[in-house]
């Protein structure tokens, strides 16, 4: 396989009438999905738009995967735009990406106008009713090679120039092969998809669905406000596999929703994107004792994941989950500050190498050169590896343990402090649902934000005093009623830091 579109060709031939994509309103069979995507591909390539960046503004619906594959059939690479983003930020992405076309559905055409975009606009509804040109698509596919880009994924930084990781067909194919094999994804899988299409985690559920002939149910965002409705939805659609951010799993754990309703079909619970609090995980395991639970870890720059851990033992509330071991065709290693490889137990920065690696950042040679570097342990031949910026170490079982972002580690009073360790200790205090530790460089203070039942900051402080050394104690505990989340559903640390003035 050299092109992602072959995944859809194959599944459409094997399972033409099986549902591939479902949202709250629409169901698309594999046959319709492939047909729709080929029409979009022909529409673009027929207008000379090929080997070019194309932006997609079709929202959280079955239209988006159809448009993604449409771009690929046309020989293009795509960027899915968060349609809820302010127009100004979308414009910033357009300035970097310079799209040759924007595929837009009716409800977002006004938003597109607000960005001031003046290039070619492909109306989704028009593109899907145009005639497919199979000869043109075959010719386009023949010219493509597997190192061509498939998509550019912009990371969620709210200030400055957006950074877009360019990921090739080869990376997605290698990654999806591993993901499907490792977690037993097949035509019987029904994914309940939580993560947005502009977030790297969606690469796993969307493409492993298409690769194996599975079904993906796009969960409407508002269901995460109504936990019982969410459970009803998952049961009605017979969802058996979820791959969510821990904050989304936490909504069900913190509400103790599974005390009131049963999840009838869930067999696999995979999570990534942020640290999974063990107490919430334990609630899930108690309620679904037979399900597979796995902690996945990786940046957008390794397609989605570079290490994983299938939960195989019990953890107590304050403990951290391992991020585990490297995937097939994506190796990892740990380098100390002095440039040598870390021994077990020694801290260092995580590096990744292999087929999952992104090609670099779009229109950004500087940032590319800083992160995609020559393997520091290989002096013999050119080998590009990715410097993740994450600090890790191996535990005594040979599993990788995540420590913190390299730029998240602080030095105070001569000590090296991991804010993540403070959070792990705080999350074990009863009455705390979620927490985030933020360091204010100006005042040299650690501030701990907490949500939960406990209403007295001093109770939390005295509980923590028994668990943390003095130099790690937060100077301030701020109780908030709800933890702010960013567009991807992860804790919005930047907003917290800004609220404190840090």
């Amino acid at each position, binding site marked *: 396989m050299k092109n992602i579109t072959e995944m859809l060709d194959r599944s459409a031939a094997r399972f033409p009438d099986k549902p591939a994509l479902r949202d709250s309103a629409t169901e698309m069979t594999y046959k319709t999905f492939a047909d729709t995507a080929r029409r979009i591909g022909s529409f673009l390539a027929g207008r000379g738009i090929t080997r070019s960046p194309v932006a997609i503004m079709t929202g959280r619906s079955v239209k988006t995967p159809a448009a993604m594959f449409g771009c690929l059939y046309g020989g293009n690479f795509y960027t899915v735009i968060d349609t809820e983003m302010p127009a100004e930020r979308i414009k910033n992405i357009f300035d970097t990406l310079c799209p040759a076309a924007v595929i837009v559905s009716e409800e977002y055409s006004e938003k597109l106008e607000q960005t001031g975009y003046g290039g070619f606009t492909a109306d989704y509804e028009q593109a899907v009713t145009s005639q497919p040109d199979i000869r043109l698509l075959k010719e386009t596919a023949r010219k493509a090679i597997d190192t061509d880009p498939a998509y550019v994924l912009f990371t969620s930084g709210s200030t400055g120039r957006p950074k877009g990781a360019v990921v090739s067909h080869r990376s997605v194919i290698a990654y999806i092969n591993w993901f499907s094999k490792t977690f037993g994804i097949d035509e019987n899988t029904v994914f309940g998809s939580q993560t947005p299409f502009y977030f790297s985690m969606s690469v796993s559920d969307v493409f492993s669905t298409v690769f194996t002939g599975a079904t993906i149910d796009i969960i409407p965002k*508002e269901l995460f406000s109504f936990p*019982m409705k969410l459970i009803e939805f998952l049961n009605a659609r017979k969802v058996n596999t979820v791959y969510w951010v821990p904050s989304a799993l936490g*909504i069900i754990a913190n509400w103790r929703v599974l005390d009131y*309703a049963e999840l009838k079909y869930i067999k696999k619970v995979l999570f990534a994107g942020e640290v999974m609090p063990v107490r919430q995980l334990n609630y899930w395991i108690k309620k679904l004792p037979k399900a597979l639970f796995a902690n996945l870890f990786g940046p957008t720059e390794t397609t989605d994941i570079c290490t994983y851990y299938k939960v195989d033992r019990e953890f107590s509330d304050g403990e951290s989950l391992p991020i585990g071991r490297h995937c097939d065709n994506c190796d990892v290693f740990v380098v100390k500050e002095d440039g040598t490889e870390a021994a077990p137990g020694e801290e260092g920065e995580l590096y990744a190498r292999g087929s999952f690696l992104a090609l670099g950042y779009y229109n950004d040679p500087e940032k590319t050169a800083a992160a995609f570097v020559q393997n520091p342990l290989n002096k013999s031949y050119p080998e590009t590896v990715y410097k993740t910026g994450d600090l890790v170490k191996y535990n005594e079982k040979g599993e990788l343990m995540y420590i913190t972002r390299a730029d998240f580690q602080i030095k105070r009073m001569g000590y090296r402090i991991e804010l993540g360790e403070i959070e792990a200790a705080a999350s074990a205090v009863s009455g705390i649902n979620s927490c985030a530790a933020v360091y204010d460089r100006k005042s040299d203070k650690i501030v701990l934000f907490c949500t939960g039942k406990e209403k007295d900051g001093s109770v939390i402080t005295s509980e923590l005093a028994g668990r943390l050394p003095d130099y790690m104690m937060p100077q301030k505990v701020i109780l908030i009623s709800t933890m702010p989340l960013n567009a991807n559903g992860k804790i919005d640390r930047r907003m917290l830091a800004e609220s404190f003035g840090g």
Partner: protein
Amino acid sequence: MERIIKVLNEINPTVNWEKETDLIGNRILDSLRIVQLVGALNDEFDIKITPMDVVPENFCSAEAIARLVGRLEDE
């Protein structure tokens, strides 16, 4: 009703809570605000709103919220 509006104003003082009849559809109450609101209502009225009560019908308007709170206070 006054106490309900007071709690709602703490969440967002710029909304005309008594006039709005589609708080969910108009995205005035999203998942975070609902969690926040439930906590505030539990405290203010000394009630226990369970996940069973957290359905759109009970949160679509200030009136619906007042009905829910009234029912739980009676129980």
